[in-house]
């Protein structure tokens, strides 16, 4: 009986703490936090296209790595920007 009371109290306390965290967190997010969002993904015309889907794969590290190995990500075939530590400078000249 005492055990049940203790367990009930612990559950009640944890639910109380969880609930107040949620309520106060929500209030602070709405009242003290402005502009906490990035642009919508479609703003910059970003499109996600899935080229391969594999469902219910065999759950093993080997098959996971095999899937990644058989479908390697591809680099775009366009001229790309330089990489490295040098500062970015536009090669354009003044009009």
């Amino acid at each position: 009986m005492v055990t049940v009371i203790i367990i009930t109290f612990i559950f009640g306390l944890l639910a109380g703490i969880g609930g107040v965290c949620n309520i106060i967190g929500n209030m602070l997010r709405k009242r003290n936090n402005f502009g906490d969002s990035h642009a919508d993904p479609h703003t910059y015309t970003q499109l996600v296209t899935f080229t391969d889907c594999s469902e219910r794969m065999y759950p093993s590290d080997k098959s996971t790595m095999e899937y990644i190995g058989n479908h390697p990500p591809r680099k775009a075939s366009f001229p790309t920007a330089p990489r490295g530590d040098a500062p970015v400078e536009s090669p354009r000249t003044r009009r």
Partner: protein
Amino acid sequence: MATLCKNCSHALIYDPSVKKMLCTTCGSTFNAEEVESESKKFREDEKVRRRDEVYGDDTDEAVEEYLENYVYTCSECGGEIVIHGSEASTKCVFCGNPNVVFSRISKEKMPEYIIPFTVTKEQALSAIKSKIANSVFVPDEIKNFQPEDVRGIYLPYWIVEAYYDEVCVISSTVSRGKTSTTIYSGRRGNLHMKKFPVDGCAILSNESSARLEPFNLHAMKPFDEDYLLGFYSNASDINYEELWHVPAARAQKIFEEAALSDVSGSSPKLISESHMVSVLNNYQYAMFPVWFVTFTYEGKHNTILVNGQTNKVVCGLPWRKPLFWAMTIGIGLALTFLSYFAFEALFNIILTAGASRRSGSSRNDGSSKLIVGIAVGIFTLFATGYKKMKKVLKQIELTQSAKTFNFVKKRQE
């Protein structure tokens, strides 16, 4: 360089409220494209010199102090202007004229586009005050804050096009009656980002500049240095790695969110991935408008950012601690008591039902699952609440960042 009024020869500034060059003396307005400074060509090649080179102090301490400081000559009064970091336009402390530092807007680094300010200083301040006016938790001292500095600064941005390709494996849980199974799904795909803006200012955090989004890129105009007059600006000082890293991180986040929502089952989790990003070499250099408003509260400097095109306010504000604790304890106690009585009733029902059952029956499993489910629910409640509070704390940290404050403060008045 000051662009002069055709009617009275006083310096012009760009006025966001009329979206034209304005003479504050005679009130004449001109389109930016119509006015041209006679001294522009002459000033084009004038270089900025490092402060220690000008004042000849080459001790180690002086060199370190002056490394970020440069000396430029005002084109109107000849006064020496000290500029910091990668500033490109500022005001002369002697004659008050706006000046564009041409060597920073040089042949190599001239922006191609600019989004002129459309939000005035008064509109930015009004937007901030209306956001915080009805807030319960914001202290009164902040609600009635007096800004120390309100500066319109053009920030450098690189507009990039990028392709992102990723392959990933995701695990999720599928329930079949009483049992649940973990399944593994593979997703391979790509993402094309067009005209993605990357903040070109090394000192301003990427997170702060990302929160200023979106900017309406359709409103970009061909760059004209006259738009800078009356405002401050910085030239880009990031390296190539930033140009790759920022779009890669954003693309990865978008792709993985789409992949996680595409798989069947619940609680999807990414367990393995490999990706490739390609940033094309057709990147463009532009300047975007931002208002920076600084104030001090309890000895800490705060900087509120306002998008100079859309009037979006970005900041996190500290809360009133006595009220915060009073509400937390009050609501916490009330919820604890309510939950205690609710759980007491629930456990009584479970125990009463269990007493009339044989041990090992399926109903006992049901009771255990219910208790586990409640425990998971409580933990989830706590975790989501904690996550929300952490978000607010992170935003406050960005608002009170010393780097951002110094970025705004160290400029000519």
